[in-house]
């Protein structure tokens, strides 16, 4: 399991050709729709994804302007 060369890697091509990605994405999108539709339901939410962790800037911070 060697780390691929980050400069040469066709990441998009690998993702699109990886079996199982489409199903994983479909399930996740269903989870996100459920969160948005069922406050207090079986999954957390509803909440804009970015607002869950304003402190932790590793992902998804979006400046106002």
């Amino acid at each position, binding site marked *: 399991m060697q*780390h691929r060369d980050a400069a040469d890697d066709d990441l998009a091509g690998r993702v699109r050709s990886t079996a199982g990605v489409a199903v994983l994405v479909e399930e996740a999108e269903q989870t996100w729709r459920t969160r948005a539709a069922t406050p207090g339901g079986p999954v957390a939410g509803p909440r804009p994804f970015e607002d869950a*962790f304003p402190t932790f800037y590793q992902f998804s*911070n979006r400046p106002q302007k």
Partner: protein
Amino acid sequence: MTSRPRFTGMHGIAAVPSYVILQPTTLCNLDCAYCYLPLRRYDRRMPTAVAVATAKTVNEWAAPADRFSVVWHGGEPMAAGPAALGELMAPFIGVEHHLQTNATLIDDEWCEFFVDHDVHIGLSIDGPGGRTANRVDWSGRAAYPRILRGVEALRRHGIAFAALCVVSEPSPQLARELYPFFLELGCYALGINIEEREGVNTRDTAYAEEQVRGFWAELTRLWRLDPRIELRDVEFAVRYLAELVHGDPDTLLPRRLDPIPTIAYDGSVVLLSPELAGFSDARYGDFATGNVLHTPLDEIITAAARSQWIAEYLRGIENCRDSCAYFGFCGGGHAANRYFEHGRFDTTVTDHCRNSKIRLLEGVLDHAAS
């Protein structure tokens, strides 16, 4: 070389952030083994004048925004006490208050404070007792029982909370211990921070690739089985995969970098990486780019690119864009990771990139392919 898309986000620094971080005190009642904060043994308090000066700008930003967050963090903010924290919050209008805490000081009085001030809570907890050994007080006593008492108080008062978990030894087995624990804990969201070598923490973070990818793959599997928790890292990776599969992956990153102003206890402002607060370097000088007691916060941000280290960091972002297939997902290595791992800001891949971005995405892919 394979032709890669040219990602267009993360160009320069935005004029208005999505949130600000304030440090009400440098003190922390814990002495966690991996902590990066240099002044956590000392109780240096933020005077109200710093909050007032910060709020002058923040209130103008918040007025037209749908949401604007003020995050109390950096040290243990509850160590300031409810009265002092309430005074510091008072000048802010139209904002959401967030508090990142180790939970050990939470009791009924604090819970009433959280409700009264509509404070959003993030807890720092690293898993079950055996996995929280790095979190100890200044006498070396385990913090875990006190963390759980704090969680119990939040539950009594019906206060929702997110959790942040620092992982020091990533492995598939650890994922199998953590996810059920956090489901049981009752947090609505979970962020995983694989330990970073930064600030005063110089511990080795060059973990074995197979273990790190295995950790993320197993976490992804467990999340799919029971997605009650909003699992920050895995879900963001899946979001990126979704854009690659049937969307536009260039839309995921913000157009410009969030300046993420951190206002330290004394009013000094560090941009982009809160972990740089309190540090200086012979080459770059103080990493603070101004002080809200002397200069309005918006002017400090506008002048940011004139700072030597920030100009170098912006070149570093471009180096990442030019050289890394994961840029569209990551947006470029963080300033503090570059500095504390490499001693400068225009380098590219760090241990943090490997552990928390590259191997995250690869681990999720490993799971999908399994």
